[in-house]
């Protein structure tokens, strides 16, 4: 039966998406681009509806008023072919309500902030359409009751994130950073996709409420699924060895940096692990691995942050350190602590990112109140040399990107080799064109 609960979920997820689609279509069909005010109105309608729906769901979940709303809310099947099904099922619990409210509130705040911040920017229209896509992705992620639906939200957030990083596309660096972030996302998403398929085939369902059934599987199979989910989370939440893209992601506009890398997107990997915590609980090897990576990332980021000269770069490293700690908490089974840590961290970081452009003003203010101290003259000892070397490594973020690039180089070399064979045997036009160009 389609009741208030169903309606609230539909509104929360679809209203920002519809707003983005209508705005995007008006550009494709219309004879001229819509103005700033029209776009803002369209998107505000979507975002505000999502926020109200989210508040309604939270109220109904907490007080059972006006309708009791918790557990699985079934919409039937998104796809059903024989015994294969992608259920259109949503899960309303403490995690979903908290993440949905967090996402809706932060997105609305950032939308309001950006109205002034991006006024007259050539990408104004694009920004708001992407914000709509992101908001829909966040709500879908929050309430998804199956891994398939979760992945849909996950991908929407990833695409929006990539396009925001490359927002100022007239410069080369943001575009390069966007491609790097997207590459990390997609490679890690392969692990997520395979985890979904494996869960469906081995557990018999991708419903989050059925993940407990994995208990009957051999340890190897549960561990495999858990490892794949961890890799997906590492990519999205920029854990080692995939941390390099986060600093580069700061190339995007400040409001989107705040929303994505302070607020929601960077925590999406952790949210995935909170949702699939039963699987992690059954795979102690994977849990220990996850906790170790989380703690290592926290150490790494704490070391690197001391040498960052720019405000957003330093904030990115500080974010990474906290994300690493939350990851360790989840892997150790402290999920309630992790949820509280996640929400408070997201709120603090969004505020800090949005204030980042004021950093110069703040620094001026502090300079008046600080007593300068003079450093002692350096002495050339083994310890000071070690410190120096460590400092250089920290400055270069331990050359993490170079090391990852070294892994990609042979893959590209293979692609070039295959391409040469292809041109020699099957694509002679291209070969002739290459020779002419040479």
């Amino acid at each position, binding site marked *: 039966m389609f009741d208030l609960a169903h309606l609230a979920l539909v509104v929360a997820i679809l209203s920002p998406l519809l707003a983005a689609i209508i705005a995007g279509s008006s550009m494709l069909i219309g004879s001229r681009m819509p103005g700033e005010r029209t776009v803002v109105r369209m998107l505000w309608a979507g975002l505000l509806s999502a926020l109200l729906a989210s508040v309604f769901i939270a109220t109904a979940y907490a007080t059972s008023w006006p309708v009791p709303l918790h557990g699985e809310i079934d919409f039937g099947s998104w796809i059903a072919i024989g015994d294969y099904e992608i259920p259109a099922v949503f899960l309303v619990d403490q995690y979903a309500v908290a993440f949905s409210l967090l996402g809706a509130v932060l997105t609305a705040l950032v939308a309001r902030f950006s109205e002034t911040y991006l006024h007259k920017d050539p990408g104004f229209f694009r920004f708001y359409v992407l914000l709509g896509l992101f908001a829909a992705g966040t709500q879908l992620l929050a309430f998804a009751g199956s891994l398939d639906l979760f992945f849909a939200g996950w991908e929407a957030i990833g695409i929006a994130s990539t396009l925001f990083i490359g927002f100022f596309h007239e410069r080369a660096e943001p575009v390069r950073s966007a491609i790097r972030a997207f590459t990390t996302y997609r490679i890690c998403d392969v692990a997520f996709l395979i985890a979904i398929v494996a869960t469906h085939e081995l557990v018999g369902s991708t419903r989050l409420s059925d993940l407990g059934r994995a208990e009957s599987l051999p340890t190897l199979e549960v561990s495999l699924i858990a490892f794949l989910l961890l890799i997906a989370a590492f990519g999205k939440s920029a854990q080692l060895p995939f941390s390099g893209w986060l600093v580069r992601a700061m190339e995007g506009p400040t409001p989107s940096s705040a929303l994505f890398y302070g607020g929601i997107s960077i925590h999406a990997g952790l949210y995935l692990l909170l949702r699939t915590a039963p699987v992690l609980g059954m795979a102690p090897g994977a849990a220990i691995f996850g906790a170790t990576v989380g703690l290592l990332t926290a150490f790494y980021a704490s070391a690197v942050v001391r040498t960052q000269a720019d405000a957003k770069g330093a904030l990115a490293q500080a974010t990474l350190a906290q994300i690493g700690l939350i990851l360790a908490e989840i892997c150790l089974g402290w999920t309630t602590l992790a949820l509280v840590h996640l929400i408070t961290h997201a709120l603090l970081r969004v505020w800090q990112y949005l204030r980042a452009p004021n950093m110069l003003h703040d620094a001026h203010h502090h300079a008046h109140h600080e007593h300068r101290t003079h450093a002692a003259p350096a002495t050339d000892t083994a310890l000071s040399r070690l410190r120096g070397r460590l400092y250089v490594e920290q400055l270069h973020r331990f050359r993490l990107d170079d090391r990852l690039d070294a892994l990609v180089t042979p*893959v590209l070399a293979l692609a070039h080799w295959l391409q040469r064979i292809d041109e020699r045997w099957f694509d002679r036009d291209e070969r002739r064109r290459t020779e002419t160009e040479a």
Partner: protein
Amino acid sequence: MTPEPVTLRLFLSVLVVLLVIAPDLIARGRPSAATLLNATLPALALLMPHGALAYGLLALATGAHAYQARPAGLQAAAMMLVAAVALALGAAALLLAGPSALAFYMSILALILRAGLLGLHGGMSALWRKLPALQVQQYTTLLVLVFSHLRFSDHATALAAADAIVILGASSALIFGLTSLVQRNLDGLLRASMLMHGGLMIAATGAAGKGHAVAALFVSLSMTLAVVGLCLMVLALEARVGKVTLLRPGGRARAFPRLAAAFGFFGAAGVGMPGTAGFIADDLILHALWSESVYATIAVALASALLAIATLRAITLCFMGPQTGSVAPDLLPAERLFAFGLVLLLLVSGLTPQLVVGAAVGLFGNN
């Protein structure tokens, strides 16, 4: 509410006609007689009650393609198409006596040739390089071949050959996914994309042998919509600025904002963007392949990821960077109409896939 199977067949027929005539309609305002023939024959094949008739019409349509490829000096393409005609005719003749193993192999070979399996893709490459509009038509009618194959092929042979076809298709997709990363021009990227998706279609059709016919049809439909949309956008861009290289940023987003948006959408739909049919297709094909081979599942997932990276790189190099002006207009009304129609179809079949799937279940049963 699930549409009847006959509604699905009618819908596919209309879709094929529209997609085949699209390049002509956009370029000249009306389709040529040859294009109308190319559109009508496969559309009729979809409605035929008997395999022999369907394959006969497909052979005629492919023959028309081969005839049009002849003057352009496309020996490889013409040979490939003539071979496909012979195979389709052979399948039609054999199907007169009912489904058989030989008819199955002839049909799948025709599909392999026309989708461009690795090693047999020379003809398709040349066609795209020299007569892109014809290749768009040829690629669109692949959907009809897949449909006819799923409908009329011999199930026992399909079951026996499934593993080999899946491995071949998935390997081909992976290799073209890999080569898409190092393309130096937009032509090359589209060629790699078409061949990668061709590999996926072959793998999906192979998996249909083990009871995933509905998935195979959905995969083929969504790939056709996304790839044809992307091809139309590439043709529109090249009509305005000539051949596009991917060596340095082109900065065309401000001159062609709609074209850039549509290009991005079709590119993303082809690699599984959520909300579009591509997302469902990716999900379906991975589940279908898992039961055949874990290797094929990983290969296809990787291929899709690699192509996604290559597509994003191409979008950034075509449209981003320091902006340049152009006297050429953005998408014209006819181009916009086709682009919008395809976007709508990809969204509707992505958000409510059961419309297609339900009708396909009615056709192929619960598999």
